[in-house]
């Protein structure tokens, strides 16, 4: 139900936004297909005829909705390939990047946050605040370029850009992960600091449990709920980041495809990618809710 609502809203919004953009669509598509130097009124007319653009935006939209009802996203106006084929290919690349980025951020952020939370107010805690604020504030575009300069150009450890080998994945994933980790470290730190000063934590200590035992038995599950819930929010950051990072690193993903489709007025591609991203949110948020409930079942039992 929620998914259908999102599909409708995303479809209508992306369509309206594309219509509101300046420039004649047929000219833009002709430029995308044949290059700027070859665009002419004749070529634009040929494109307009071929794609049936004279019919007007309302007819096009109704066509798209009718296709969608048959689970058909249509064909790209530029390449002529089925939108679904293009998205499937690009989505794989984006999911790979997003998954590795999320994994890396979880390896970096929460452990640092837990340590800082357990030593709240200490030097490490204060330093983490500064560093995390820094990484959140730096645009991913700049962070990506700095990582390329340091790790690829200076140290020659990793390829600077491109796609193909596992090594190509690391720099873009790290760029995304550092931003995400900066945020999740702060969330974890606050949750941990709260738990560490709670009465049940003091009681566990009084029972004579070691620090490690207390953390495992009473700490992790309690900070799990806010951290996992926050993961849901991170998907928004991740989706934003993917669009920027894919462009810098030449990663053939859905964010990159969306930018180019917008640029070229490839309406079916824009609608298709926006739809897939929108539905992705619905699915991921549902998953996050399920996980959060498993970690903290109180709400369900109540």
């Amino acid at each position: 139900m929620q998914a259908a609502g999102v599909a409708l809203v995303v479809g209508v919004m992306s369509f309206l936004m594309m219509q509101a953009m300046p420039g004649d669509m047929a000219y833009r598509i002709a430029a995308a297909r044949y290059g700027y130097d070859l665009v002419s009124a004749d070529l634009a007319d040929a494109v307009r005829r071929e794609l049936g653009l004279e019919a007007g935006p309302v007819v096009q939209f109704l066509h798209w909705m009718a296709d969608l009802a048959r689970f058909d996203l249509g064909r790209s106006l530029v390449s002529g390939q089925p939108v679904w084929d293009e998205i499937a290919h690009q989505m794989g690349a984006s999911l790979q990047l997003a998954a590795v980025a999320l994994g890396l951020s979880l390896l970096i952020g929460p452990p640092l946050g837990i340590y800082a939370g357990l030593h709240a107010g200490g030097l490490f805690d204060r330093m983490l605040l500064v560093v995390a604020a820094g990484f959140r504030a730096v645009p991913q575009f700049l962070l990506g370029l700095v990582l390329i300069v340091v790790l690829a150009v200076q140290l020659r450890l990793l390829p600077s850009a491109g796609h193909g080998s596992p090594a190509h994945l690391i720099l873009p994933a790290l760029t995304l992960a550092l931003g995400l980790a900066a945020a999740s470290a702060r969330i974890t730190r606050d949750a941990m600091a709260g738990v560490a000063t709670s009465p049940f934590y003091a009681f566990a200590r009084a029972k004579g449990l070691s620090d490690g035992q207390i953390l495992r038995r009473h700490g992790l599950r309690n900070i799990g709920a806010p951290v996992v819930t926050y993961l849901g929010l991170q998907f928004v950051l991740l989706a934003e980041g993917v669009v920027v990072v894919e462009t810098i690193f030449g990663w053939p993903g859905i964010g990159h495809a969306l930018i180019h489709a917008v640029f070229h007025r490839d309406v079916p591609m824009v609608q298709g990618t926006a739809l897939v991203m929108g539905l992705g949110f619905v699915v991921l948020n549902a998953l996050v809710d399920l996980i959060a409930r498993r970690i903290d079942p109180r709400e369900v039992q109540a």
Partner: protein
Amino acid sequence: MRRSIATLLLTGALIPQAALADTAALDVAAPFEIKGADPVLSGDIFLKMDVMETLVNADTSGALLPGLADGWTVSADKLVWKFHIRQGMQFHDGSALTAEAAAFALNRSKAKEGILAKAPINAITAEGTDVVITLSEPFAALPAFLAEYRTGILAPSAYAADGSVTAVIGTGAFRVTKLEPPMTLEAQRFDAYWGGAAKVPAVHYTSATRAETRALMAEAGDAELVVNLDPASVTRLQSVAGVAVHSVAMPRVLLLKLNTALPFFDTVEERQALSLAIDRAGLAQAVLRYPAAASQLLPPAVGGWHNADLPPLDHDPEAAKAAFAAAGWLPGADGILEKDGQRFTVELLTYPDRAELPLTAAVLEQLFREVGIAVTINATNSSEIPAKHAAGTLQMALFARNFGLVPDPVGTFMQDYAPGGDWGAMGWENDAFTAAVRKMAAEGGSDAEKSALAATLQAELPVLPIAWYQQTAAVSHSVKGIVIDPYERTYGLKSAEFAELNRLCTP
């Protein structure tokens, strides 16, 4: 589980890239995206990567050479051209290159809005070992058109039943092993190549749209050839060890197009005055960062069309003011020129796809303000220029025009200036010029005739040339034989080779 992922990621991070990347391949990075297997869409990439070839070739000066056709003849009435197909050649799938296969590919290109759709062609057929092209009127530029990428020849097996292209099966020195639009093309040496097998075993193409990324790829050694550098990167890469920066003047020109039907630009004197207001040398140096001021429309590299005898376009704001005053344009209270109650205010249309265009527009706005012209810059879609031209509402437009789309600029001249295409002169007509260009397109022309046309454009200034572009590329010292072609047809990959034998051992 978490630990095993961590181990995997860390080992991945610590392996030097040389151990993972295919070091035997020559890597090329360029901004152009692969839009699909169809030569009409992405043939420029297939041609430059030496996977696909055309009937006619051209060298770096634009001179035509035999390609898949080893010779051609034209009938006495200049209406029937015969291109003889080189014999004993095969496509990458092992099938033979025949005149039928070539004619099929050309017919399809023509139907798909390829360059051939712009030529006066009645029919393309195969007769024995010849491709026969029948024209409706004489057209001397036909062989040059057959050198353009959209006429690339693919094997019959590359096409689906509906005529769409499903695979890149060409005759070039490399055969495609992986095509992943929009960014990746990988190809291996084709040992049966008719021109002799290439020296490098494989070539990889990566599309990296951002100029910063491409420059860093060159600096990090991830690509042996990186093309289309931005001015800032050129300056930086010049001091990087292991990389050489090359640049050649190319037939792409930064132009200011004027609607000569408007009262601002309807006389030659006004257009010349406007031209005098432009500091081309300063602009080229500050924005493009190389001395590329255009002294006339086409650069010296475009043989015949560059007229060395023409006096260069000067910068003289005082003379510009005087000329406008002589034409009746006098400064009003706020310094803006006025004539018959009309203020000299115009809209300058440009587009941000090329980073230098909005910058150049901003400089022009200042330069024009100095002589009393108020310019409003509208940086929008490039398509607005041809669209507003067609609608007659364009006032002034700044853009980059390529005169080397086909190795003979007469093709572009015919479109733009005889009497006026969507990118060329607007509201300007010169019957003698139009007749000369049409005659040249039909019958060919001498260098003297081409120079005369250049002189007409310089005298009447229907468009104001600003600067000539340069093709810039960063080439690794580890390769030799790379070609920087002003006509953008080749990278020279089929003859390139790695310079160091121990390259495989070094990271």
